[in-house]
């Protein structure tokens, strides 16, 4: 049985989404609710559909990882919930620049605490194509980063988040995804639309305690 850290509303959201979205994820730390869909229309007024997103935080080992602790993995899941079956969406995903996070404490104050040093590599930006009624899960965290379950909680977005062990406070983590055009040209297929917009993902309630683990 999964034991998820979070408030009751969030747990309800997670319960609704886990069966489909993360049935294979055996070490879920947290999954946010879906954001509001953001539509996209082309200049010729063609309806290109809408995109919504959510955040997944997992304990797992990816193929290249061979450390003594599992990785803490963060994924942004995007879903094309529109009806424009003939107009797949091209989305530029830059996990460093287009994902912003804000953590607040129980008093709604922004927490600026540092997340620690590091080395290694971070996922590179890329274009993804999302057809109608399709989802995609995109790696949004440092490769090879992971904190043992009893040593606090690490959320290794580019601006790392760390909640120390023994910290009994509860925090709210809000992540936004803003898709913009990259500095270089991108040639889409004629039928495709380039989706640009901002998704504000529902906040996650997090703490450092063992309740963040299964």
């Amino acid at each position, binding site marked *: 049985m999964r034991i998820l850290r979070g408030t009751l509303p969030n747990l309800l959201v997670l319960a609704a989404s886990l069966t489909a979205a993360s049935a294979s994820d055996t070490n879920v730390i947290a999954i946010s609710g879906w954001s509001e869909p953001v539509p996209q229309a082309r200049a010729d007024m063609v309806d290109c559909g809408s995109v919504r997103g959510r955040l997944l935080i997992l304990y797992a080992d990816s*193929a*290249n*990882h*061979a*450390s*003594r*602790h599992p990785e803490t993995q963060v994924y942004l899941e995007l879903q094309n919930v529109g009806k424009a079956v003939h107009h797949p969406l091209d989305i530029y995903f830059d996990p460093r620049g287009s994902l912003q996070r804000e953590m607040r404490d129980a008093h709604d104050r922004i927490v*600026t*605490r*540092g*997340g*620690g*040093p*590091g*080395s*290694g*590599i*971070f996922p590179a930006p890329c274009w993804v194509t999302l057809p109608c009624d399709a989802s995609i899960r995109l790696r949004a965290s*440092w*490769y*090879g*980063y*992971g*904190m*043992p379950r009893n*040593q*606090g909680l*690490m959320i290794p977005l580019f*601006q*790392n988040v*760390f909640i*120390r*062990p023994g910290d009994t406070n509860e925090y709210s983590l809000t992540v936004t995804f803003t898709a913009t055009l990259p500095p270089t040209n991108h040639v889409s297929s004629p039928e495709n639309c380039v989706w640009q917009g901002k998704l504000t993902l529902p906040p996650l309630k997090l703490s450092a305690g063992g309740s963040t683990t299964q």
Partner: protein
Amino acid sequence: MLTNLPALSGSRPFIDPAGYASRALSSLTWTLVDATGATNTGDGMVVAQGWSISDRYHTTNWFQCVDLPLALGTNWASIQATDLAGSVAVTNFYYIFDTNGDTTAPALSLTWPQDGTQVSGDNFTVQAWMDDDTAAVALQYTDTNGILQTVSGLVERGGNVWVPSVPLVAGTNAFSLLATDAAGNVSTNTFSVTQTNAGLTISPIDPGLLPFAYAAVGGTVDDPNATVTVNGVPATVYDGGYWQVDSLPLAPGGTVVLQATAQLSNGATVQTLLTQQRDPMVFTQTYGYELDYSLTGASGTNTFEGHHTQLQWARGLGGTNTQADWWVDASGNVSSNLAITVWPPDNGYLPNPNLLGQIVGTSYYNGVLTDTTTSTSGVPNVEWMEESTSAGAGTWPEQFQTSWTESSAREIHLFTGGGACRQSQGLFDLSASLNYETQLDQRAYDWYLLYPGLAFWPFLSSASPPAAVPPQQITLAGLGCLDEHGKLWTMQPDGSDLAVTPKALSAMSAFPALAFRALAPASRAASTGGALPLPQKRKLVSYWAASVPANKARTTVGVGEQVLVEFSPSLQMKARWTTTGGSLSTNYATGALLIAPSNAANVTVTATVKRKTDRIRFTVLEPTGIDHAQITDTNYYSLGTAGAGMTVTAWVKPTSVSFYRVSIMELGRVSTDATGYFANTNVWPAEFLDHGLFGAGWWLPLGTDNSTVDLAYSGPCDPPWSLGSFSWQVPVIWEVGTSIDPTNRPITWNQNQAFTIDSSGTVSVQKFGYRITRTTNDVVTVETNL
């Protein structure tokens, strides 16, 4: 009989046994069992043959076998020679390869460019010579990034050394040329070259003209008032800066060298050098014929008539043609004519049509000179036959009393093309055809009628219809007999010149004494069934999957690299492939895919075709560390935040190979040297000292250029700030592939990632020889070469 290995011991890793046999050879092979027990075999070559116009079979044949690879210790070698009658002679000997006591470094002399030369262009070729052609040569220089580069040179048998495509940058370029022999003795020749903006170019010679001894050579020079020489020969400089030498001598061999020097009008001297490789070719080495006959009692009088014609031509020596005839009338008066043609020496593989023979003709009457004429003659051209020797005296069908002899010969050679580098060789499929000649004696009367007023044809004519010699009866000098398809496969070293004259074994048996009666009904000879086709040379080549380094022909490779090995041009038959290391997939139409082993090794891939083997040898290297690195980004934190970071691209060495199938891993270690701020767990959690939690333990695949990207950063450092430092020791392991259990992998190199902070929040991060320091005002400084 061996003639060049008197000591049967030495400190060089190859031997080239040479010697001679007392008769013409039909095949020559060698076998070597080295000191490790490994067996190598190869084809030898007949490099020269004694020339007897009357007996071409009992002549001395000089042979050579090259590149017999030795192992340290006692090596056993055997040379097997078979003559045209099938008799086999074997010479066995032991050769001791021992480098102990060899303390003499190779004598290395720089040919071009000399120290201080001003060279035009952005790259150049180094030419040198050394007295040990088994030594290795390398050129070292420091590139524009400050990285010491080492480039291997090519060494030809005989000692010529080449280092092609050496990059030049503006200003003075310093180089070290090193020669290292098998004993480890090193010679060093340092020199510098100055790149000049003054343009001086040499246009490549049309490859079709390279077989000749002379060629027109041209190029350009920026200064139209310059004087230009090529290989020391003055050129004519035309308006616009084009220069040309109309007839430049070209030295024989596989590499044609053109070195141009321009004396500019401002007093400066600029040089450049161009090398070109000659392609394989079949050419005539020597030929000649001789005809003597006399007639007596012609028309029932006492008139006597005699004729003598003799032509001899040899590559490198030129030739002479002597034609003499004389007669005696019924009164006893003697008239005679003599014409002597002299062709100048011609070192080309094909006779130069511009080297005319000079003819001096003289006429005498009773010993008194009556007339002298001079004229010229083109290239002598003798239609070839294997053997045509007759001698006799008898009655002509038209009652002439005659005695006469005639013979002809021609020696065909194969030049294998390319530079004569050690163990660089090619697979040749040679073909030839011969026709029996049966009409020798029946044509004698025709000669008399036709000579000298009409075209004279002193040789045999083909049977009608032509009677072909079975291919298995045709031998190509020391290379053996053709197969049933009329082909002969041989593996021969590049840059070699060997005899391939076709001979018919059956014709040999028809001429046991090689002196026979002219009218003997059994007399037969053989002539070529047509011109010998151009030789087809195939080389074993490799196509590396990695796009970097650009050298696809390299034989030094990274662990795990994949390469397709095949013959070029491709074979229309399957070869048998084996390898001494790594794995080999032969499910390819034209070659085999080698996957280099996952550890350092020397690997030999062998292809066997028609019992001929070719080998390509690879040196497999492992990653050894970081070659160099470059910062690409330092923009990590916002104004007011304490912290520093850098994105670094680092290249794993050696960069002369590709490690595109290699992954490296930084092993996580906990810092044990934290001080001050970083030891204060109130501001810096203890977890932050454990590299294993922050990026270590990840298999990072390398790019084809061996690059990897690393983001090394401190993270935001929360106030209050104070002096402090800590470091991560970073052992690095590697493996071919990913998802490998790192537990038992050896640590190959160690690196370090170090952090400091001061009381103002200025943070530094150091890694890969860089240190980036950043203030809270976002002032970033980078230090290098740490």
